[in-house]
């Protein structure tokens, strides 16, 4: 599960029928502190998230099982983040030589 911020929504009247009825949201990928990394993707919304919300999403097969109809999708929002607590910020340095 990866963090992201909902940046917008995609409307597509002509689309694969498996996507009919799915809300397609634009996600800006972030780290767990909410800082945007610049990457974006479109994900199906499985939990009713709105613009600007800090969410987490799953990809590949895990995205398909997130929705009852098991649509062929590769990314699905599965949670809206209320809060994040980080006890340390790993900086990739040595923990123990």
């Amino acid at each position, binding site marked *: *599960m990866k963090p992201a911020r909902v940046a917008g929504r995609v409307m597509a009247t002509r689309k694969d029928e498996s996507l009919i009825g799915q809300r397609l949201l634009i996600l800006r990928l972030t780290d767990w502190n909410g800082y945007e990394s610049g990457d974006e993707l479109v994900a199906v919304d499985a939990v*009713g998230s709105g613009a600007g919300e800090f969410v987490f999403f799953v990809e590949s097969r895990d995205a398909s099982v*997130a929705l009852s109809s098991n649509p062929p999708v590769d990314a699905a929002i*599965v*949670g*809206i983040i209320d809060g994040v607590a*980080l*006890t340390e910020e790993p900086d990739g340095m040595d923990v123990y030589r």
Partner: protein
Amino acid sequence: MFIAKVIGHVWATQKSRGLEGKKLLLVSRLKISDSKIALSRETLMAVCDKIDAGPGDYVLILDEGGSARSILEDKTAPVRTIVVGIVDQVECGSRIFEMRDGILEERGTR
């Protein structure tokens, strides 16, 4: 699978049913080599169900959705990364490390 340190957690009331009642831990992958041990900068979220892991614990992580769903016994859980154990000791190369309460100590060499 890989070893990671639990460095935080996430709370989210509005989430998929398959995640209800599960802890959402943030973990940093441990990179162990003969010369050094390091926590990677990339932080991942791991679901924690039956294992009682919390911040500071070194845990064993399984990182594949199908296996995660069978462990959770829920074919619809949108989960890929899951905690499957708490690591007490690691023997790597000639070195032995013990992990307890967030402290990682070398216990001599083999």
